[in-house]
C-alpha cells in the first residue's frame, strides 16, 4: 500500500480487501450479476475497484481479438478515434488521402503551378468518379459533372488573354519536370507565367491561375458561393440539405476551396463539417442519425449534452438491434456500432467526453463477450444508464454541492459563455438564498452566454452581461471566476470554449481565484501544450455578419457613408450585407473560427470534481487512482 498509511500506522489489515472489493457490494464482482459495476453507492471509488478486479472472461480466439481492437482505438487521439476506419469503410482513403497530402505542395507556390494544378484536377476527376457514392451522385446529378468539366477546362478559360492560357495548356503534356529542364527553359517558363499573371491582374482576376479559374467557375459549380446556403444552421430544409449534399459530393469544389481558404497553422485540423446524411450508410439507427445531425448543427452543444445524447442514441440502437445469424449480440454489437461512431465523427469532431463514454461502453462490451443475447442487451443498456447517472447526473449534483461551499454572500462571480454545470451551480446557490451577483462574459460568434443569462435572469439572479472585450473593465469588481470545461488534460491544462484562457489569465493577473467545474469523466490522458496542436475549426461563415447570419448584431457592418464612398452602387445593392459577406471571393482574406482554447494549469486555482476539490495538477492522479477502467 502507499507509504502514507504505513508510516501513519493506520494501516488496517483488511485495507487490501477494502480496495479490491467494494464494501458491502461484493457481489458486483460477478460478471453476470444484474447489479452493475456502478453500484448504487455514489462512492465511485469502490465501483472503480470492482470493475478492475473483475476477471476478464476472455477465453476464445474471438474474445482475445475483441479487446485488442478496443485497445487500438483507445490509443488513438480521442478526437478522431474512428477516422481511419471510417475512411476505409466508405472507400474514402484512396480518394481523399492523396489530395490531402498533395494540397500543401500545390499551394506553396511551385514554379510550375499551372502544370501541377491541372494534373491534380485531372486526377480528381478520376477519383471523384470512383469515390462518390451512387446515391449521392444521383441526388445531385448535374452538380459534380458540370463542375468537373468546367474546372478541368479552368486554366485555359481563366486567363484574360486567351493566348497565354492556351500556351500554358498546350505545354503541359510535353513539359518535362522542372529538374530536367535547362536553365533557359526554366527562365522561359517563368517569364511566361509572369506574363499570364500580369494579364490576369489587369483583367481584374486573382493573380493565381487556379483562383482565377475558381472565381470564374463558381456560379456554375454545384457549391453555392453564398455562405448562408452552405451554412449548416439553415438546416433542416430540403433545399439546404440538397445544397449541402451537393457541396459534399462535389468534393472538388470543396477541396479547391480548402486549398485557398485553409490557414497554414491550422492545416492539420479537420475542416469544418456540415450536417450531411447523404454519405451516411443506410443502415444507421435513426436515433444516432438524429443525434449526429443535431450535433452538426450545434443544436446539441456542450460536452455533457453531447455525451448524453450520444449515449442515449446508442442505447436506443442497442435496444433495437437484431443479431444477425451465426453470431451473438456481444460479439457483433461493436461491429454494428462502429459505423455509428464514425458517422458521429463525420458530423462533428468527437468531444473528449463522448470519446471517454464510448471507450467505456466498448470496454464493457469487450468484457462481457460470453453473455446470452438478451442478458447482454440488458446489461449494456443498464451500463449506459448507470454511466449517465453516476458520471454525469450524480457528478453534477456533487459538484454543485461542493461548489456551494465556495459561494458566499456578497460574491461577484464572473463566468464565461455557458456551461451546464456552472449554470446549475449558480441557480442552486441562488435557490439556497446566497446573495451574489453574476457577470456573464460572452463573445462572438456563438453568444452562448445569452442562454445562461436568460436562465439566471429568469431565476432572479442579479446579472451583468458583457462581451469578452470588456473583461479588463469588469474584472476589477469580481472576486471569483467560475468556468466550465470541455476537458481537463493530463498536464492540468484546461481545454474549453475559445476565450476561456483570456478570462482565466485576466483573473490570475488580479489574483482572483479561478474555479473550474469538471466531471472526472471529462479528464483526458492527452497532454497538449498549446491550442494549435489540437482544436476544432468551426464554420468560418459564423464570423460573417450578413442578413441571414448576424445574430442580431451589426458590429462588423460598415457605416452606410463609408460603404457609399468606397464602392457606390455595388455596395448599396447589397445593402444590409456585412463587410465580410464576400470573403470567399476575396483573394487574401481567410477566416478562422476556432472553437476551443487551452488554459495552462497555473491559471486555474481549483477544480471542483465529484471526488472533491483538487488542484488541476492532480488530474493524472485521478486518472491513475480513480479511473483505471478508462485506460482499458
Amino acid at each position, binding site marked *: 500500500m502507499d507509504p*502514507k498509511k504505513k508510516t501513519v500506522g493506520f494501516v*488496517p489489515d483488511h485495507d487490501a480487501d477494502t480496495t479490491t472489493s467494494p464494501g458491502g457490494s461484493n457481489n458486483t464482482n460477478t460478471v453476470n450479476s444484474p447489479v452493475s459495476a456502478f453500484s448504487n453507492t455514489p462512492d465511485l471509488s469502490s465501483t472503480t475497484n470492482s470493475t478492475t478486479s473483475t476477471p476478464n472472461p476472455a477465453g476464445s480466439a474471438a474474445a482475445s481479438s475483441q479487446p485488442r481492437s478496443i485497445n487500438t482505438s483507445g490509443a488513438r487521439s480521442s478526437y478522431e478515434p474512428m477516422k481511419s476506419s471510417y475512411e476505409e469503410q466508405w472507400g474514402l482513403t484512396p480518394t481523399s488521402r492523396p489530395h490531402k497530402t498533395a494540397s500543401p505542395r500545390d499551394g506553396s507556390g511551385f514554379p510550375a503551378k499551372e502544370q501541377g494544378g491541372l494534373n491534380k484536377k485531372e486526377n480528381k476527376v478520376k477519383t471523384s468518379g470512383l469515390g462518390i457514392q451512387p446515391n449521392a451522385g444521383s441526388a445531385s446529378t448535374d452538380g459534380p459533372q458540370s463542375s468537373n468539366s468546367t474546372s478541368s477546362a479552368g486554366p485555359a478559360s481563366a486567363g484574360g488573354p486567351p493566348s497565354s492560357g492556351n500556351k500554358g495548356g498546350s505545354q503541359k503534356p510535353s513539359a518535362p519536370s522542372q529538374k530536367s529542364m535547362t536553365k533557359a527553359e526554366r527562365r522561359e517558363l517563368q517569364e511566361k507565367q509572369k506574363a499570364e499573371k500580369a494579364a490576369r491582374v489587369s483583367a481584374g482576376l486573382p493573380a493565381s491561375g487556379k483562383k482565377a479559374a475558381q472565381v470564374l467557375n463558381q456560379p456554375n459549380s454545384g457549391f453555392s458561393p453564398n455562405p448562408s446556403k452552405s451554412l449548416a444552421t439553415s438546416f433542416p430544409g430540403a433545399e439546404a440539405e440538397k445544397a449541402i449534399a451537393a457541396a459534399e459530393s462535389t468534393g472538388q469544389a470543396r477541396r479547391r476551396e480548402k486549398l485557398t481558404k485553409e490557414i497554414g497553422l491550422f492545416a492539420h485540423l479537420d475542416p469544418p463539417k456540415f450536417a450531411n446524411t447523404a454519405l451516411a450508410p443506410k443502415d444507421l439507427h435513426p436515433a444516432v442519425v438524429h443525434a449526429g445531425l443535431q450535433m452538426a448543427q450545434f443544436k446539441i452543444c456542450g460536452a455533457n449534452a453531447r455525451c448524453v445524447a450520444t449515449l442515449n442514441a446508442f442505447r436506443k440502437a442497442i435496444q433495437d438491434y437484431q443479431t444477425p445469424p451465426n453470431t451473438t449480440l456481444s460479439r457483433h454489437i461493436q461491429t454494428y456500432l462502429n459505423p455509428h461512431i464514425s458517422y458521429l465523427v463525420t458530423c462533428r469532431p468527437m468531444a473528449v467526453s463522448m470519446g471517454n463514454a464510448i471507450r467505456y461502453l466498448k470496454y464493457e462490451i469487450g468484457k462481457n463477450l460470453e453473455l446470452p443475447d438478451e442478458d447482454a442487451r440488458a446489461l449494456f443498456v443498464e451500463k449506459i444508464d448507470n454511466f449517465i447517472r453516476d458520471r454525469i447526473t450524480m457528478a453534477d449534483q456533487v459538484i454543485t454541492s461542493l461548489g456551494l461551499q465556495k459561494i458566499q454572500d456578497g460574491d461577484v462571480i464572473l463566468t464565461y459563455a455557458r456551461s451546464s454545470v456552472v449554470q446549475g451551480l449558480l441557480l442552486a446557490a441562488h435557490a439556497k438564498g446566497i446573495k451574489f451577483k453574476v457577470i456573464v462574459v460572452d463573445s462572438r460568434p456563438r453568444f452562448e452566454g445569452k442562454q445562461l443569462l436568460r436562465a439566471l435572469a429568469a431565476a432572479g439572479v442579479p446579472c451583468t452581461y458583457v462581451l469578452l472585450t470588456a473583461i479588463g473593465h469588469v474584472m476589477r469588481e469580481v472576486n471569483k471566476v467560475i468556468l466550465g470545461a470541455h476537458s481537463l488534460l493530463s498536464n492540468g491544462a484546461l481545454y474549453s470554449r475559445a476565450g476561456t484562457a483570456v478570462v482565466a489569465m485576466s483573473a490570475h493577473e488580479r489574483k482572483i481565484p479561478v474555479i473550474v467545474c469538471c466531471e472526472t469523466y471529462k479528464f483526458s490522458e492527452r497532454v497538449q501544450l498549446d491550442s494549435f496542436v489540437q482544436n476544432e475549426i468551426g464554420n468560418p461563415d459564423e464570423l460573417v455578419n450578413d442578413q441571414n447570419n448576424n445574430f442580431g448584431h451589426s458590429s462588423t457592418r460598415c457605416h452606410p457613408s463609408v460603404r457609399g464612398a468606397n464602392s457606390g452602387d455595388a455596395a448599396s445593392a447589397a445593402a444590409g450585407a456585412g463587410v465580410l459577406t464576400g470573403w470567399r471571393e476575396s483573394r487574401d482574406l481567410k477566416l478562422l473560427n476556432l472553437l476551443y482554447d487551452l488554459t495552462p494549469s497555473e491559471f486555474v486555482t*481549483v477544480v471542483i470534481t465529484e*471526488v472533491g476539490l483538487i*488542484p488541476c495538477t*492532480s488530474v493524472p492522479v485521478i486518472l491513475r487512482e480513480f479511473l483505471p477502467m478508462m485506460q482499458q
Partner: protein
Amino acid sequence: MSKDFDVVANYKSLLLNSPELSMPVAAIQSLVELIKHSNATTMSEFMLSINVASQLLKSSVRNSISLSAGCDLFLRFVTRNSQDVAEFEAWKATLIVRGQSFVEKADACRYKIAELGVPFIKDGSTILIHAHSRVVSLLLQKAAENHKRFKVFVTESSQTHGGIRSAKVLRAAGIPTTIILDAAVGYVIDKVDMVLVGAEGVVENGGLINQIGSYQMAIVAKAANKPFYAVAESYKFVRLFPLNQYDLPTYNADTLSFQELNVDYDSKADDSGSVSSSALSQTALHMKTSEDQASQGSNPLVDYTPPNYITLLFTDLGVLTPSGVSDELIKLYL
C-alpha cells in the same frame, strides 16, 4: 452513549500533561479513550458517538485546523474499517489497539522528518523560522547534533510569543539564535539562506495553514528568491481547499472587522475601538485595548500560504512538492 466521559476535558488534560504532544495526536488519543469508555451496543450508536465527540473537540478550540485534521483522519480510519465487522466488541478492541499504535508512532514521524530535512541545512547557513513548531525545532536540533553550524533568526510572533519559546529550545541545543520582530522579516531576508516553517495543516493543493505571519514570510522569501520550506507530519494533511485567506474555516465576520468608532477618548480601559481602525492613531493610548482585542478574536490566528510560494514540504512521506500533497490526500481519502 458515553455520557460519563468528557472527551474535551480529556483532550485538554492530555495537552496540559505532555507539552510535546501535538493537537491532532492528542485528539486521536482522546477519541481512542472515548472508544475505551464507550458502552455503545450498536454500530450506528457507536459511529454517532464518535462523530459527536469529534464535533465537540473541533468546536472546543478557537483554531481547529490541525485538530480537525486528526479527527477526520481517525474518522476516516474508523469508517473505512466499519464495512466488514464480524464482531463488534472485537472490532472495537482492534480500533483501540490501532489508535494507540498510531499515537505512539506519531513521535516517530517527527524523527523521520528531521532525518529527511537535515541534508537541506548547509553548513554555515542562516535560517529564518517562524514562531514555535516542535517539528522545526527537532529538525534544527538534529542538524546541530550532526555538527552542522548554522544560525537562526526566529520571529517573535506576538500573541503567542512562540518565538521566545523556540529561542530557548534552540539556544539550549547550542544554536546561535536571534529573536526578531515580526515586522523585521523583510529586513533580515537578505541575510537568510532559507525559510523554515511548521504547519497547523497542509491543505489539498499543498498550501499551508500556519500561525499568522507565515504568508507574509513566504511572500518576502519569494520576492528575495529564498527557498521556503514547510515541515509537517502527514497527519496534518487536511481535506480543505481554501481559495484565499477569507475562505478558511477559522474566518468569521468578526475577523478584523471594522467596528463602530465609538471610542471613548477619555477612558483608557474599556472602549471597543478596533485594532485596525483606531489603534493606528491612538497606539499609545490603547495598547492594552488592542491586546485585549487580539485575544478576543478579532485578529486571525492563522493564515493560508498558497502553494506557489512553497518550495518543498518535508513530511514523513518524503520530501514533497506542493502538488504531491494532493496526490497523497487523494490516495488516502478516495
